[in-house]
């Protein structure tokens, strides 16, 4: 699968500032279509900040400022004519802590399609919700209690509900910000399997603290340190044969 590499997201000299503090320094990165790219690095290295540049979630933080270019399908997502609302329908996001809305399971998944007006009838909406829950591997567990609150599910189920919610608007890219850090190993394994399946239809970028997870789920790995992109390449190469000393230190557990 490595042979057909189409670039989905391209960043050119991206820098991010929080007030005076520079969190990301001139990052150039390519993210390939239908692959999983993992961003690893010690805490505070800027990998989450970088992730949030791809769907412009940093816009919601007042003091945050971005320079450089982020291109999705060769289109600059920071140009003035681009509506971040539409962008975020194309680039879904799953967060560190499962954050289902305090609504029913059905309404959680139906949220995106409703605000974007994706369906024309109630039946269509129901089909879409069922479909998304199936894709997220949650449908069989919740089909009898679609009207219960999303917050009544277990942590792993909540996270899959959030994934279902994200894929309900058929995004092209799914960003995952440490999606398993609040979950136990079994729930984590379920999510990782799910990521493997989702990869066929979506481009996935995942931030993770677990190097084993990065090695298991991703084809490409980027190592960040202090806001710099230190090394980027195929996951197998990064883990077996890192070119950079810092990357090696981090991967072998000497730092971080």
């Amino acid at each position, binding site marked *: 699968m490595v042979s057909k590499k189409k670039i989905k997201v391209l960043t050119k000299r991206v820098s991010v500032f929080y007030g005076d503090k520079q969190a990301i320094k001139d990052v150039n990165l390519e993210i390939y279509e239908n692959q999983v790219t993992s961003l690893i690095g010690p805490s505070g290295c800027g990998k989450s900040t970088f992730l949030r540049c791809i*769907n412009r*979630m940093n816009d*919601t933080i*007042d003091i945050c400022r971005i320079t450089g270019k982020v291109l999705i399908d060769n289109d600059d997502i920071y140009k003035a004519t681009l509506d971040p*609302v*539409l*962008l*975020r*329908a194309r680039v*879904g*996001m799953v*967060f560190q*802590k499962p*954050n*289902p*809305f*305090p*609504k029913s399971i059905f309404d959680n998944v139906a*949220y*995106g399609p409703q*605000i*974007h007006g994706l369906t024309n009838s109630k039946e269509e909406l129901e089909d879409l919700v069922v479909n998304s829950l199936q894709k997220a591997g949650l449908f069989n567990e919740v089909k009898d209690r679609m009207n219960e*609150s999303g*917050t009544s599910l277990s942590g792993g189920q909540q996270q899959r509900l*959030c994934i279902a*919610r*994200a894929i309900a*608007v058929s995004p092209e890219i799914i960003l995952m910000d440490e999606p398993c850090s609040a979950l136990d190993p079994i729930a984590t394994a379920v999510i990782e399997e799910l990521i493997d399946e989702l990869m066929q239809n979506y481009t996935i970028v995942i931030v993770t603290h677990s190097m084993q997870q990065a090695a298991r789920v991703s084809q490409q790995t980027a190592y960040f340190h202090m806001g710099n992109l230190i090394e980027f390449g195929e996951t197998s190469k990064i883990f077996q044969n890192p070119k950079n000393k810092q990357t090696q230190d981090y991967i072998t557990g000497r730092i971080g």
Partner: protein
Amino acid sequence: MGLGSFCVLIILIATFITWYGNNKALRVNHALGKDLKLPSLPKYYSFYAILWLIIPSIILILTWYIAKPLILDVLVLSFISEDTIKNFSGDPSMLVDRVKSINIERPFPGTDTNLIEAAVYLKKTLERVQTFTFLSILSLGCFLSFIAIKKINPAFRARQIVEKYNVAILLVCSVVAIVTTIGIVFSLIFEALRFFDKIPLFDFLFGLSWSPQMAIREDQVASQGSFGAIPIFAGTLLITIIAMTVAIPVGLTSAIFLSQYSSPMTRSIIKPLLEILAGVPTVVYGFFAAITVGPFLKGLGDVFSLNIASESALAAGSVMGIMIIPFISSLSDDVISAVPQSLKDGSYAMGATKSETVKKVILPAALPGIVGAILLAISRAVGETMIVVMAAGIAANLTANPLEAVTTVTVQIVTLLIGDQEFDSAKTLAAFALGITLFVVTLMLNLFALRIVHKYREKYE
């Protein structure tokens, strides 16, 4: 010795005991040598000793103040000569009251000299007995705390006991408020029961006419009063509804603006200004309603050839609504700000706009808190008096027309109790009946509000 000097003395003694107990514990520790130590820190031993000083003292002092009047009566009666009691036409207890009310320095001319002597005796003995009581209480406290200090030894765990007493003290303090509430209820209930002896409960709750004028003397020409409270309840309801119609939309939208849209700069200006509104005395709102809003509405009505009374439910209700705005806005602001950022992020990440997020995620998540805020505001509005007195009048009209004068429960209570009243006429007692109705209603509202707030509080997790 008065209570003031007693308090000063007890503080001095407590300081000394702290020092002494600490020292004693340190000495014991020292004597025990390296391997063995007291199980608690020295301060716990001295604290334990202080508890033995203070708790019995407080209990005994309270007992003294409760027992004092009883002791006084006996003392006075025993001092007054048999003859004076025999000559007195009323009950001896009235004589005691008369003695107590005598001003010794300047007795009312013509007062019985026996009684003046009794008063002088009373004052002196009282002072002596009180000083004696206080000193004995103090010495008992000292004795107990010194025993406590004596008890310092490695087998005695002071910390555990002090912690237990801590809990007990906290409990007692929190019970004070509850006991007070119960006392208030009882003070209302007894008077209200007397009222319901005269007027049947059914007539009061469902009667359609309110005119509480009673003939004071048998021969007086006056209507037999009627005590149907429905017009008053209806007036209260009408004014509350008007107030809420003003306060809920304005308060809620300003809360949404302040918590979600405003820049920190704007927020830092608007929020304190809104809170100033909450600090305006209700009498001042009353002026505003009576002098500005009422006539303005009347003038406005004239333009559309509507007849608006210069004292109208609309004027009072709308000004009351303005008064309640900061109440709703700051409570809702708190609950809206408490909606976790992760929920908002989740919504934005789905491509929702700010207003969609507010409408579909933030408000539903904060709804229980907002409902709680509104219910608390309603109970505030129901209990508000001044604005209504000044702007809505006191005529108990049964009407749903906001342009007419109406009256509320609190206003009626005020008018019933103003001036000289005899406390056994139905007119005066009606105030208590109204009071307890009001109390029950606001209590229910508050309980309901708290229940809602509690039930949904942990829903975000």
